[in-house]
Structures are given as C-alpha cells and as structure tokens.
C-alpha cells in the first residue's frame, strides 16, 4: 500500500536558518497524525512543504506516490509547472491557523468558489454540496453570512468546509484552533473528529493534547527541525523516551 505522505530526510532552510533538518516519516491512508512541538520547531513548515507552499531544499517528499513539486524522468528531476502544482494541490485540503476565508464572499461562496472555478463544476452541483458541507459543520443557517459576521470558530468550520468541497484525499491542519477563544475550540475539534471517523487522512499540527490522544493514530513530537519522537499517542504521552519530549509534555499537559 502506498503511503499517503512519505518524507525521506526532508530539509528546508530560510536563508541561513535551517528549519527542517532531515524529517523522515510516513502517513498511511486513513491515518490521523498529530504533530506537536514548541513554536519554531518546524512543524508548520513541514506541513506547508506537503502541498508545496514551501519548496524543500533536500530530501524526498511524496504524496500518494507522486513526488511533491517535481517529476522524475530517467535519473533527473524536472520542476513542475505552476499549473501542475496547482492540480496536485486540488487533492490536498489545507486549514490555516488564521482561517484565511475570502472576506468579500459569503460562507457559501467561499465553499463553492474553487469547485466552480478550478474544477469546472456546475453552479447547481457546487451549491448543493456547499449546502451539505455547511450542514455537516453545523452552519447551514450561516450560508449567506460574510466571514466578518461569523465568530472565529464558525469561520474555521467554514474554512474546513471550503477545503472539503474540493474532495481532497488528504487534509492538512495548521494549528486550526490556536487563534480561537477557548469556548469555541470544541466545535472545531468535533468537526475534525467526525472527519477522522469518516476515514479522512489527516496531518494535524496542534497544541490540543486531548484531541491528539483521543483522535490521533500516531503522534509526532518535533523540536528544532527534527522528529524527536514518533509513536502511538498513548505511548508518546504516557512513556516519552527523550528528555526533550518529557519537558515539553510537562509544560503542556
């Protein structure tokens, strides 16, 4: 079985700062992988590399059997054209810490925009699915609201619906609840939990240890650009092997 995400010694540097120092891990289909670690550990950067928002400098990264950003022919790598990169991204949904909803469009328009413009779906079909998706995330009555009129938790749920509208095979979550008021976190996590139960492959960068423990199939602790510990959430949380993991968990638990 091909892994959904396969990273082999992935390196990334910004100028002279090396942010990822050789990440090797794999995510199987239907797996929910949670990534934790102190800020600046490179976990968000790694997530952004998966859909090529950042270009990796060394190593290999595959999504569903395809190299990210390159095509291999003979023994040479060819950079993908913008259009090819865009086509790959359609298959990967991404949810951002700051939601990044399009403020000039209603919730429903946010959800239908990409299916109509990018995939060329009919408006009726896209609207029908938008209605179902907004219903799934509990916002059927907010279809005509603009992002400004929604709470942070509601905006993030619209953002999840927007990503799902492209029917991705992989969902990336970049600290989806970090910008939310505490009482709004639960609604977003509930939607993500439902998504996991439905068999979506997910990589979730998060600080929500409860979610990682209950929903995650695997837990990765990253620090200073490397994977320090990788295992089942139960093992990593209950019995961390490394001192760095222990001291981080002591702070967040």
């Amino acid at each position: 079985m091909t892994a959904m995400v396969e990273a082999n010694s992935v390196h990334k540097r910004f100028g002279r700062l090396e942010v990822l120092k050789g990440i090797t891990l794999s995510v199987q289909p239907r797996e929910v992988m949670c990534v934790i670690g102190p800020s600046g550990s490179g976990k968000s950067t790694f997530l952004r590399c998966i859909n090529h928002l950042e270009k990796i400098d060394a190593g290999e990264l595959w999504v569903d059997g395809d190299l990210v950003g390159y095509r291999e022919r003979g023994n040479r790598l060819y950079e993908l054209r913008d259009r090819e990169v865009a086509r790959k991204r359609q298959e990967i949904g991404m949810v951002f810490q700051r939601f990044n909803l399009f403020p000039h469009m209603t919730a429903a328009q946010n959800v239908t925009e990409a299916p109509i413009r990018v995939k060329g779906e009919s408006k009726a079909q896209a609207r029908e699915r938008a209605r179902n998706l907004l219903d799934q995330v509990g916002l059927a009555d907010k279809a005509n609201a603009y992002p400004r009129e929604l709470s942070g938790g509601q905006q993030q749920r619209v953002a999840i619906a927007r990503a799902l509208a492209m029917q991705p095979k992989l969902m990336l979550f970049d600290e989806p609840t970090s910008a939310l008021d505490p009482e709004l976190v639960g609604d977003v996590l509930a939607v993500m939990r439902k998504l996991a139960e439905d068999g979506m492959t997910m990589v979730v960068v998060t600080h929500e240890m409860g979610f990682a423990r209950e929903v995650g199939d695997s837990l990765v602790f990253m620090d200073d650009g490397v994977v320090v510990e990788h295992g089942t959430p139960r093992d990593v949380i209950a019995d961390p092997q490394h001192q760095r993991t222990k001291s981080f968990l002591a702070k967040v638990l």
Partner: protein
Amino acid sequence: MATSESSAESSAPVRTGADAEQIVAVPVRHPGRWVAAVIILLLAAMFVHGLVTNPAWQWNIVGQFLFDPQILSGLLVTIELTVLAMVIGVILGVIIAVMRLSPNPVLSGVAWVYTWFFRGTPVLVQIVFWSFIGLLYRFPSLGIPFGPSFVYFDANVLIPVFVGATLGLGLNEAAYMSEIIRAGILSVDPGQTEAAEALGMSRLMVLRRIVLPQAMRVIIPPTGNETISMLKTSSLVTIVALHDLFGVAQFIYGNNFKQIPLLVVASLWYLVLTSLLSIGQYYIERRYSRGTLRVSRTNFFGLRRQGAGA
C-alpha cells in the same frame, strides 16, 4: 445574534437604565463658534452680493453660452478624453502593477522604467510630444523586426491630434495608476493568496477572483481622485489646438472678448462633471466594501433610504 443577546440580558435581573435618574446639566457654551459663524456668514454675504451686483460677471452672457452648441461639443470632447485616458490608464496600470510585482526581473525592470519615465516628464510635454510623433516615425510599419515590412502607415493619419492627446494623457496616467494598484495588491493579506493557491487556483485566477476584488477597497478612492484630476488635466490639450471644453471657451472669448463669463461657463461645467463623478465613486466604493465592517447603508448625501433596514 445581537438581538438574542440583548433580549437575554433584559430578562435577567440586571440593573438597567430605567431606575437611574436622567441627567440634567447645563451644556458647555461655545461663544467662539458663534463669533466665527457670524464672520464667515458676513464674508459669504459680501461675496454673493458681489456676484449679483458686479456687472463684470455678465451673467446674461453666461446664460447665453451655458448651453451653446459649441460649448456642448467641447464638453463632449472633454468627457471623451477623460474616459479614454482613464480606461488606458487603468488597464495599462493593472498590467504594469502586475509586471512590477512579477518575480521575472525583466518584467519588473521594464515596469519600473516605464513608471520612472512617465512620472518623470511633465504631462504637458508628453501631450505635445505624442502630437508630434509623426516627425519621429513618419511611416510606421508592421513586419519582421530588422527584416522586411508588410504594411505601412502614415503617422499623420494613424495618430491625429485627438489620438495623440489621448495617448499623452493615458500613458502618463498609467504610470500613476500602476502605483495605486500595486499599493492595493500589496494591501491584501498574503494569507489570502496562500489559501487560494492551496485550493489549486492558478496565479491569474487568484489575482482576478481573490486579490483584486479585495484590493479595490484601497484602489477606488485614489482612482476617483485621479479621474477628477484627469477631467481638469485634460484641459491641457488646448495646447495642441484640440477643442475641448476649455479650448472652445478660449476660442469664443478670443472672438468676442467676454473672457470672464466664458471662463465661468467652463468652470460651471467642470463642477457639474466632478460632482457627478463624486457620486459615482461613492456607489462604486459601497459595492466593493461587501463583507467589511464599514458598509454604509445610506445614500450619497448620508440619507437613509426608505426600507433600508432599521
């Protein structure tokens, strides 16, 4: 949501304003305001009195020429020049702004040089220059660069004075518009581009569907300024003997020596046009402020339309 909250509040046993005593206080007096108002009203009365009683204004002649066919045809030329120059300015301005932001150093360099050149020379010089372009390229032709040509044009036929003046105004305007549009594009949160690209949108689609509509809020007010400014700058074309509104007024008072009344006629028409543009700008701004906090629900004069909500 707000209504449900407030109704929840009123049902709770909270101390509300009903049992507090209404404040009765002597308001602060502002004698300075009264003095200023009296002085200004006095000056205004003197000015109006002068307008009415000074015979040199020659209001009867103003009335006579206000709807003169020549003046109206000049008005039409002014409107055409303004519209065409702004259309060139906006379209070319978008292209140059996008080029300037391009990662391709050749494109961004060319855009920079364009802006440098057209902002660096006076628009009056450019208008005259374009009218004399025929001296520089007598017979422009289409063909293979440095090779044979297939079609020849006569520059004097290809670029008559009106086209020359329009190009002069439009190309100059494009340099200014490109900076306005670039500022607008840069004002949009980069997270918007990222989110759109993560959905698989192409760069052009991101620009057209996501970035530009949001940039419009920043772009429109200075563009309104530019349009109003262009309306008046277009009067410079009288230098190449084009009969726009001001040109016609000059032409008429050159014959009948009624300078003041004809300048008043031209000014009145310029005022009418700028007023119309201001109103148009207000409604365009409102259109592009969808989804933002400061959406005005009133019309241009700040009056609430009937039935426009609470």
